[in-house]
């Protein structure tokens, strides 16, 4: 049924740290790797080895340049490059679920994960139209809608070692920029992280109430105004003695010599 369940107490989701992400795309690769071999239809590629390659991904990393403004008389601070991973935010008011005509899209009542039952999906694409985040992609080969499953086949999988029971993207991130946990529990690590770092929602005005949160880049250090190379540029011998002192005097005495 594509009507939304009442808000669940458990809200599983991701917290993505925009300060720490280095933009290596390892999460993109591990996501595609895990999800093409496991839950549901594989994530196909079209013309993968040509100039017009295209394919289905559940997680993509954008990069943005943010230019701080000029403040009073100070020149503008240097532009910042911010890498921005984006996948399904598992919204509480998921507009993609209610528009589905077949009941293929649903939000789990027990943990809030938004999934697609691919056997019921007719590939009409309306859920992708309803999603403001571009989290859903219609697979060109299978003709069904693909989206992040929050690695539902890993996080509850008792065949995997304990440390692997988290989404592939979180497990693989070398920078520790992705965190997985229960955002419905105020005492969970991810909830504390969001509270302490000022985690925010994407497009809050769309009213989707995303579960996933983003942590803002930390403020840049302000350099004190001195030249760090200055100590090394001072003349070595101020009042030379011995041979160097004689040479200094002799050269200064020559016509046009530096005093």
């Amino acid at each position, binding site marked *: *049924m*594509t*009507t939304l369940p009442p808000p669940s107490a458990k809200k599983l989701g991701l917290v993505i740290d*925009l300060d720490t992400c280095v933009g290596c795309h390892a999460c*993109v690769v591990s996501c595609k790797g895990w999800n093409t071999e496991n839950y549901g239809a594989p994530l196909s590629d079209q013309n993968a080895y040509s100039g*017009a*390659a*295209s*394919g*289905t*991904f559940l997680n*993509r*990393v*954008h*990069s*943005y*340049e*943010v*230019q*701080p*403004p000029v403040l009073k008389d100070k020149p503008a601070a240097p*532009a*910042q*490059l911010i890498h921005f991973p984006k996948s399904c935010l598992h919204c509480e008011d998921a*507009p993609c679920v*209610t*528009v589905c*005509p*077949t*009941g*293929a899209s649903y939000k789990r009542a027990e943990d809030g994960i938004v999934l697609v039952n691919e056997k*019921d*999906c*007719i*590939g*009409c*694409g*309306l859920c*992708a*139209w*309803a*999603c*403001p*985040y*571009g989290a859903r*992609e*219609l*697979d*060109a080969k*299978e*003709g*069904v809608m693909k989206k992040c499953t929050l690695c539902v086949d890993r996080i509850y999988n008792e065949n995997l070692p304990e440390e692997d029971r988290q989404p592939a993207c979180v497990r693989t991130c070398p920078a520790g920029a992705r965190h997985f946990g229960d955002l419905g529990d105020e005492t969970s690590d991810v909830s504390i992280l969001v509270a302490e770092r000022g985690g925010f929602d*994407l*497009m*809050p*005005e769309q*009213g989707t109430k995303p579960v996933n949160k*983003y942590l*803002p*880049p930390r403020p840049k250090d302000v350099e004190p105004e001195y030249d760090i190379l200055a100590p090394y540029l001072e003349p070595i011998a101020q009042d030379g003695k011995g041979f160097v002192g004689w040479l200094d005097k002799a050269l200064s005495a020559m016509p046009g010599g530096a005093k």
Partner: protein
Amino acid sequence: MHPAPSVIFFTTFSGMGFGLLFWLGIDTTAPTGWIAFVFFAIAYAMAVGGLLASTFHLGRPERAIKAFSQWRSSWLSREGICAVVTLLVLAFYGAGLVFFDAQWSVLGWLGALGALGTVFTTSMIYAQLKTVPRWKHWTTPALFLFLSLGGGALLSGNVKFALPLLIIAGALQAFAWFHGDGRFAASGTTMATATGLGHIGKVRAFEPPHTGTNYLMREFIHVVGRKHAMQLRIIALILGFVVPVGLLLINAGHWTGLLAVVSHIAGVLTLRWLFFAQAEHVVGLYYGQR
């Protein structure tokens, strides 16, 4: 939004087809016998043909039957149910007129109501989307309904209603364009809210997530088509409304009527193409494009 031909044909022809069915349903002097057969054949060809065209853009058309199940939340599901019920009800009404020379007006009125409901539910598929600010407005259902009623009246030869309805539809379309141009900006969704980085400074897309294109960019970002928007709007208004109204005012005969219908269809196809090509989806902001 990508202007898919299947969806443009579907909304244009099924809209006119259901409009024609509405007028056939409430007509107190409805034709009977062969004339009724021709009218119903045209209406069903348009309505059913349009619905079939819409299945061409499905990834899995063989499962389309499942789309009738989620009427509680989904406008697309409601539209499917409305369309099938209406077509069934009016099939009995039409059979009465064609084969038995009998007008079962209760069925006609029920079918007419269903025809309006089908057009309304179609329009709500678009009007419900907060992600496309140009569509999320009362003008979307109003325009779909008036275009359907006006086009249907024109097809059924009902000049008395076709004239005012086409004039209203034309005026409504002009207003919808004018008002719609500012709605993306008015929605408040920007690159700053999309990325949450606006508090640092001005956000610019530096590098896309991939070297090629993807489903999202093909489906939601359509820049080229907007280049000639103003010319196309004028062409759509002239073909869709000015020419048919002018022809009906000069001479409401069969041949001018046919010309008016052809011109109106060309105009509606043009404005429906613009309806998609000019609609901007907020997801484009993540790519620094719209």
